[in-house]
């Protein structure tokens, strides 16, 4: 088949650098936020490994705990924690932008939506910690 675009003038595309996201601080923030996806995947991988170790028995558990205490793993996991924290904060502060609520024709202010979201986050985190720590 004939490619129709061959007979049309080519539009002008300025080549964008692969490292465009280093040019400005908001761009960098955007790409760091997007990069949190890698650490979300990493967290699921850790969870699956721990489920495997817990169901496998004492030797697998001991190996898992020792691996988690390795300085390299601790370094990666502290970075992963900061990234998922960044994901959570950016996600909750975007909630009012994605969810516009109007009361009597007036738009509900951003803080009235993000405030309760942060409160639920704190409560859910405390709930998870309580279930894990109560022993």
């Amino acid at each position, binding site marked *: 088949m004939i490619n129709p675009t061959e007979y049309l003038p080519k539009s002008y595309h300025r080549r964008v650098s692969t490292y465009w996201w280093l040019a400005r601080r908001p761009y960098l923030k955007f790409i760091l936020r997007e990069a949190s996806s890698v650490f979300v995947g990493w967290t*699921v991988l850790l969870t699956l490994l721990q489920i495997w170790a817990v169901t496998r028995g004492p030797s697998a558990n001991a190996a898992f705990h020792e691996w988690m205490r390795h300085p390299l793993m601790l370094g990666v*996991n502290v970075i992963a924690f900061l990234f998922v924290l960044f994901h959570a904060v950016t996600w909750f502060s975007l909630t009012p932008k994605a969810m516009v609520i109007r009361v009597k024709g007036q738009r509900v202010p951003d803080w009235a939506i993000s405030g309760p979201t942060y409160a639920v986050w704190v409560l859910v985190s405390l709930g998870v910690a309580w279930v894990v720590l109560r022993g």
Partner: protein
Amino acid sequence: MKRTRSNEPLLWLLFSAGGVVSAMLMPVHLFLFAVAFPLGWLDPPSDETLLALIRQPLVRVYLFVFCFLSLFHGAHRFRFTLYDGLQIKHLNELINVLCYGGALVGTVTAAYLLWRVP
């Protein structure tokens, strides 16, 4: 005329559901199991306690949803990171297969591991 349906709405739905789940739950999970327990800041629960915990059906459903939605959130976002960030557009189909395929493999693994909990 043949109508083709796009998968995109479903993928965006999974992305936002997974975004909420991972934002709500991952910071506390990682803080406890990957930072506070290994560093000895907090006394970790015994392995027997954890086993008793994941024997409960509700906890297994929780962990499955946690893994499944977070994986599809991560896959979708990572796909666009490569697309916009690194401008790898010519490998689009391969990237899609690897991202969503990886999320699917992880979801099936989670289901399998949680299903055969003794």
